[in-house]
């Protein structure tokens, strides 16, 4: 079985977001780029499956749509343990564009399982995984918190409102994963970092596709009123304020 893990490149989660060019873009000066937290966990789970000889997983490939500037993110994924990588050489303009490119890669290379994170921490779109599956006409299972392969059959657990469902599906399929899929992201060891340098990164030119959406402006969240402090000796006053001022209890 071959697994494809989709990797997005995002600002470190503690980044203070600043805008540039009249609030039409993000100021990228000083930003540390990391693998999207969900994608790091997807990759970890894919590698765990490959480590388990009974799973039948033979290879883990990562795919990224981005320019040469995201090369370090790809090398990091290789250092963590991916066998090889594919980079589609284009600015990732919107979910539609990215999903169409990855679907094209998947058509050419034929994977059994495609794993995507539930969202990227920058665009918060939750769309790429589902779009890839529809472009390919294959099933998708979303909100997946566990992915196993039992006797050659993929078995997933997905979160539903107020519970969980165990779902079976035939490969090929797209798993859109969230919390629980792996406990801790795997970290690159020195050996992995050395090996990553020689692992293959295939470069592909993008299909000509028009994005369907475009961000024309950013704004900061509406500022909140300053905190009103209540004396620790009189917490009852908090209840009074919540009841009579905020009117939320």
């Amino acid at each position: 079985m071959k697994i494809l893990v989709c990797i997005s490149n995002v600002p470190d989660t503690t980044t203070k977001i600043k805008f540039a060019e009249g609030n039409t873009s993000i100021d990228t000066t000083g930003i540390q780029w990391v693998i999207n937290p969900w994608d790091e966990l997807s990759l970890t789970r894919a590698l765990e499956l490959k480590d388990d000889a009974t799973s039948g997983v033979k290879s883990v490939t990562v795919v990224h749509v981005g320019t040469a500037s995201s090369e370090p993110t790809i090398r990091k994924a290789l250092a963590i343990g991916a066998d090889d990588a594919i980079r589609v050489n284009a600015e990732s303009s919107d979910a539609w564009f990215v999903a169409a490119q990855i679907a094209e890669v998947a058509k050419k290379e034929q994977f059994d399982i495609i794993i995507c994170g539930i969202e990227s921490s920058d665009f918060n779109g939750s769309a790429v995984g589902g779009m890839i599956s529809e472009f390919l006409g294959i099933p998708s299972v979303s909100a997946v918190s566990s992915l196993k392969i039992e006797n050659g059959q993929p078995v997933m657990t997905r979160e539903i409102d107020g519970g969980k469902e165990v779902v079976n599906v035939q490969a090929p399929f797209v798993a859109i994963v969230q919390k629980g899929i792996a406990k801790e992201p795997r970290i690159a060891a020195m050996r992995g970092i050395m090996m990553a340098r020689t692992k293959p990164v295939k470069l592909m030119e993008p299909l000509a596709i028009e994005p369907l959406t475009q961000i024309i402006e950013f704004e900061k969240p509406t500022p909140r009123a300053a905190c009103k402090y209540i004396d620790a000796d009189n917490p009852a006053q908090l209840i009074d304020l919540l009841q009579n001022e905020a009117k939320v209890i």
Partner: protein
Amino acid sequence: MSVLVYTENWEGKFKKLSFELVSYASGVAKMLNTTVTAVSIGKVEDNELKRLGNCGANKIINIINDQLITLDNQAYASVISDISKKENATVIIISNNNTGKAIAPRLSVRLKAGVGSGVSRLPLNINPFTVYKRTYSGNAFAHLVIKSDVKILTLAQNSFDLIETANNASIENLNVSVDGSLVKTSVKDVQKQSGKILLTDADIVVSGGRGMKSPDNWPPLVELATLLGAATACSRPVSDEGWRPHEEHTGQTGKIIAPNLYIAVGISGATQHLAGISSSKFIVAINSDKDAPIFQAAQYGIVGDAMKIIPKLVSAVKEIRK
């Protein structure tokens, strides 16, 4: 032209979020000078369906089909896209919950429709069609132009007020044929929590962090939550340690919630935690460190020892509930 809204049901019942969706759809339809069609899949009584009309649906399409009993993303997307074509829908509205996130992107490809995900306000403009959406995990909001003829919006929970007026919507029971070859998933087992207020539905949430020190200190916090009719939540280290169940973990890598009131007890307020709660209408911080970042996000704060403060809050709530 019309606005189509997909309203999920839970064992034949709708939730507040379903009514928010229809109210929102009705707001969008007014901007576009058109009508709202609500689509429901599964067995729902007419009385319950009619409630969608009271929030502004002009027409309700009710679909019952044995192949649609459990959620199969591909089959659901195919059914909803067929109906939206039939209804000539130019805007499709779905919740930004697990189900919405599962279906919206598939619909997008079927209809070549751009997606605005996690919108929390009515469109800013209809020409060009511009929506207001959360980005950078709540650290920024974007004005997103959707250029395609058909647009899909997923609405953030608890971001839009209900509009309820008596209205007689027509109900159409529709037989759809589902291409069996599209149903490729099967559900083997279902585990449901029962009797608990779900974190994603709750108007009030009481949440504990590492400052609670030990799982043994939770009972007063749970009592406070019960008295307030609140759900309980926690920060990531708390669920990682196994002090509380994983379903309670809120934040960037856990649940993203937007209750009316979020009470953070012994939570420092790391960016990744705030990413999951910053859309709450009111945030209360209880923390022994006056410099904890959570106070910058909070409207009400108490600096002090949670172990002493929580029991006093419990008594105060009991007092007003007498």
